[in-house]
């Protein structure tokens, strides 16, 4: 019976895998390798150009920088939030989580325009700063603005993934650590965080992937000066209609995200030689 069961189980996997292969991997691979007006050789050449052009390398660097910053800030803000929510009384934790999921429901364009109203030279922040006599602040169209917008976009994902790890943790571990003389900070750093690392890492991967591929937010908040891979991809596809070059950009983005996913998988495995 375990044999039939195993067979049944694998059969269950097939429809999903088939759709994944047929409706995702196959068309994407085909389009990346042979985009309109291009063939694998052109794409390879364009990729070479992208990776060697001294003007485009900073774009890659900025993409990575923005994604890493976004991920770190999401982790810094999201993990403690998930922790507090997971340790709050049950009747609160549900409502707090709902509040954290809320932003996922906002239209990206509108949400981003909200930021423009906050960050602009005449925006809420600047007005407040001027009222305090600190002068005009212009955060809009800077890397900071992109990071801020992306943080807002992806914080919920970080909170949700961390929460699912944290809520499964044995709360007695914290008691044990405190009983051994560790203050709240030490307990958090040495027990709570390392144990929830797998969830946090899933969150980091999702946020990193999202930040690398997000387009609307960087475009509207960063402007043309702060060009990153996704805006480069957009201009290749939507302005110059240079599809082989767009394929090259997409390939680089995909490889970056895969590398981060692999890294986080490895970290997670190393961190959790747990039961």
């Amino acid at each position: 019976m375990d044999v039939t069961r195993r067979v049944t189980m694998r059969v269950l996997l097939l429809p999903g895998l088939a759709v994944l292969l047929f409706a995702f991997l196959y068309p994407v691979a085909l389009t990346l390798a042979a985009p309109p007006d291009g063939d694998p050789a052109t794409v390879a050449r364009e990729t070479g150009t992208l990776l060697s052009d001294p003007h485009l390398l900073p774009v890659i660097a900025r993409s990575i920088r923005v994604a890493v910053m976004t991920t770190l800030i999401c982790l810094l803000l999201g993990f403690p939030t998930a922790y507090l929510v997971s340790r709050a009384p049950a009747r609160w934790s549900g409502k707090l989580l709902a509040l954290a999921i809320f932003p996922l429901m906002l239209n990206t364009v509108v949400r981003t325009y909200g930021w423009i109203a906050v960050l602009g030279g005449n925006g809420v922040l600047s007005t407040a700063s001027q009222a305090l006599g600190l002068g005009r602040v212009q955060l809009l169209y800077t890397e900071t603005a992109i990071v801020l917008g992306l943080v807002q976009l992806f914080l919920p994902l970080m909170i949700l993934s961390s929460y699912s790890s944290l809520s499964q943790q044995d709360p007695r571990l914290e008691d044990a650590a405190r009983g051994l003389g560790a203050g709240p900070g030490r307990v958090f750093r040495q027990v709570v965080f390392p144990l929830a690392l797998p969830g946090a890492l899933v969150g980091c991967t999702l946020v990193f992937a999202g930040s690398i591929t997000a387009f609307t937010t960087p475009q509207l908040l960063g402007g043309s000066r702060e060009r990153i891979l996704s805006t480069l991809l957009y201009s290749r596809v939507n302005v110059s209609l240079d599809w082989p070059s767009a394929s090259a950009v997409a390939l680089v983005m995909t490889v970056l995200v895969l590398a981060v996913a692999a890294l986080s998988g490895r970290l997670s495995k190393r961190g959790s030689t747990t039961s």
Partner: protein
Amino acid sequence: MILRRPLLSLLSAIAFTVMLGPVVILLGVAFTAGSTLTFPPEGLSLRWFAAAVEYRPFIDTLGTSLVVAVASTLAALVLGVPATLALQRGAVPGRAVVENLFMTPIIVPELVLGLALFQQFMVGLHITALGTLIIGHTVLLLPYAVRVVGASLALADPKLEEAARGLGAGPVRTFFTVTLPVMRPGIISATILAFITSLNNVPLSLLLTGPGVATLPVEMLNYVQSSFDPVVAAVSVILLALSVGVALLTERLVGFNKVFGR
């Protein structure tokens, strides 16, 4: 809690401010009496809601968006739940690889997936725009279905299924009467996440439109390209209210902490 954990509480307060600040601004903008997207709003009125409800393209595309969101969410669950089951319970060889494979749709830029589906499906296979939209969104939502449902199934006692088999229930009956109900919280949360993700998606949908077929977010994006008044904010508030309604109902019925945690 707040007193005992000043630093964590501060970070979490910042997190909520960052997340919810734009919501407040959005509300302010949507209810403004003025005609520009400024904050704080210039007086209060419902005029932009009236304008939003009257604007035909939004109404027409809302229908499409809902159809796509419902169909692709269902499809993702129908494909994803059995796959999750197999991954969690089936001793699948190379499980980690397969699991990661199911996560790949979120790492490829959606613009590229959109282009690919347009080129290979709409043009190559003559599938309608609506069909291609549903296929594309299904692929995009699959990771949510597999991951979130998987998380809840991983926590359920596998002995429950053995107990059912031992009591004389065949595999199918066991699935529907025991496994599925046990996965319910995971399925509900996956449904919410997937539905919202589909309803708000722009980059994937951008190319997958056809004569008479477009999604609401794409139409909203188009709208802000040309006229920049609070109508879009009003539409967002309407969508938000709908989603919040669904979310509140879920929280009432199941509890988000159960959905995403334990």
